[in-house]
């Protein structure tokens, strides 16, 4: 490289700035995160374009197609085979992505937004408010998440939005605790003291100085929580607490419905299982990549 080229390169390296563009630059160089983005990208597009991808109606099947045996494996006509009711498994998986995604996003949004509010209050104001909020989260965390979700579904009744609420509520204490801890650390930062010494009003200190510097672990947790939510929803479905309509192509419900055929047609359980694993893996890889990319210790490098 000539000197001019080296200089041009340096200029280019220095040009973009800011927390997010920095993080994005590092994320692009992380192969695991790229794989994660690819998996999630596929997952998202399948969910969005389900009606165009799925060859058949996922809800109604044709028992006559089974030909007396359960159940035909993958073939050219039915890529993932047929299930015990003669429904096309591929179509069910494709539509199932919609449910997982919808429930995942809604429940994480519930957990995240409520957790953000409680976490900021506890972290910034401290004192007795902090004690009360933290004891509540301790109580919630002492109950296993899935058990709590089962309890909430049992109390609210079965159904799609009940599942979202149940999974969302189990996520609240994690976000609350995470943000509180992060704010506690940031609150004592020198730049917060410096901002106070300049006379910046309290709410501005919280919104402009403390929150933006505390939020990155919460964002990382958000992507990881999406993965957990997908698993929790599948687990609820597996335990028979899935959506009310048994024909709903939800991955966890599909797993339960096929346990009886495990010996004769293992692919019926394997395929939704793989779908769950892949989508969860995708979100986990992105989450891990984000965690590295947003780590302030790596800032200004890469």
């Amino acid at each position, binding site marked *: 490289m000539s000197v001019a080229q080296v200089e041009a390169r340096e200029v280019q390296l*220095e040009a973009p*700035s*800011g*927390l997010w563009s920095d993080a994005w630059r590092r994320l692009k160089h992380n192969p695991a995160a790229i794989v994660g983005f690819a998996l999630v990208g596929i997952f998202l597009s399948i969910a969005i374009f389900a009606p165009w991808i799925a060859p058949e109606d996922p809800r109604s099947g044709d028992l006559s197609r089974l030909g007396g045996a359960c159940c035909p494996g993958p073939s050219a006509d039915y890529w993932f085979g047929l299930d015990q009711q003669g429904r096309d498994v591929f179509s069910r998986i494709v539509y199932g992505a919609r449910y997982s995604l919808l429930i995942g996003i809604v429940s994480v949004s519930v957990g995240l937004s409520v957790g953000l509010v409680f976490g900021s209050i506890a972290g910034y104001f*401290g004192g007795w408010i902090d004690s009360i909020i933290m004891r509540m989260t301790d109580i919630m965390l002492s109950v296993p998440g899935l058990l709590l979700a089962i309890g909430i579904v049992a109390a609210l009744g079965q159904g799609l939005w009940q599942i979202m609420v149940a999974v969302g509520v189990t996520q609240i204490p994690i976000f609350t605790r995470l943000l509180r801890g992060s704010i506690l650390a940031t609150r*004592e*930062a*020198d*730049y917060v*003291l*410096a*901002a*106070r*010494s*300049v*006379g*910046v*009003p309290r709410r*501005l200190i919280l919104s*402009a*100085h403390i929150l*933006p*510097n505390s939020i990155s672990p919460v964002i990382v947790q958000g992507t990881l929580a999406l993965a957990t939510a997908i698993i929790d929803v599948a687990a609820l479905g597996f335990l028979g607490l899935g959506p009310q309509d048994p024909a709903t192509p939800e991955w966890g419900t599909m797993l339960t419905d096929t346990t009886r055929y495990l010996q004769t047609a293992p692919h019926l359980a394997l395929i939704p299982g793989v779908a769950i694993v892949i989508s969860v893996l995708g979100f986990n890889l992105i989450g891990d990549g984000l965690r590295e990319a947003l780590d*302030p210790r790596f*800032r*200004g490098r890469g």
Partner: protein
Amino acid sequence: MDRQALLSVEDLRVEFWTERGTIYAVNGVSFDIAAGETLGIVGESGCGKSVTSLAILGILSRAGRVVGGSATFEGRDLIGLSDDELRTIRGKDIAMIFQDPMTSLNPVLTIGRQIREALETHFGMDRKQANKRAGELLDRVGIPSANARLRDYPHQFSGGMRQRAMIAMALACEPKLIIADEPTTALDVTIQAQILNLLRELVRERDTALILITHDLGVVAGMCERVNVMYAGMFMETGSAVQVFARPRHPYTVGLLQSVPRLDAVRKTALNPIEGNPRDMLQPPQFCPFAPRCRYEVEASRQEVPPLEQIEPGHKVACFNPVPAEEWQRMKDAVVAR
């Protein structure tokens, strides 16, 4: 003091309530500072230097409480004021420069945004005006192509540039008093000199009062008219820079001066550190806090706290058995002279 005091601190006491017990951080400190004056507060780590300044501005951490004394600024006692009232003074009338420019700037906000903050808070400037003024300030503290660099983030600045940016923030509202808490400690020596020169110029330009808090005796000697030597939350010796450095009378001051390497020493003489550890601050001082480490202690030193008493005009020492006036000169000669 012939000039009228801008800030007058009287018997300031600060405690921290922690799980380990009460920490008596500042135990009755008094000083005056007038416009245009530069005052030094020297002492080792943890002696209460920084806490004093944070207490004056009312930005102690939660555990800290001012338990006594007053800090009168332009006729108003800052200690009793509410946070809202103090906020109108902080940054506008009294500004602070912090020790570590690496951590004292918010990493997610641009430099310009952080300088604008004070202007927008105190003068209600709109973004455009504030930006123009921020550019002028950055230019004034010696940052090249200042207007373009307003959009930079702190990590794109070097340590010296960040400290300049911090100074620009402190200067934003043209405060009457600047408190600089170890402004050069985190910087390398060549940058230190530049920053100190800049501070000196700026203070002279606008007749600003400057409180310089540091453990670096060299910095104090070069910058300050008056010096306070602090130990265990109390002033041990106060006086003009000449008095304190040429005729130190308190054993602690002498110890501090002795532990500084001298370039004019003839042979390689071993440094003379002060023996022992700084005082544990979990007890209020009941006798001279320096006595356990002191070579000059007398019986009274272990019985009561020595009062700060005048030994020559403008020169006060808190000691029952001050070091003889010629002692330091003799010690110095012993090292320098052949």
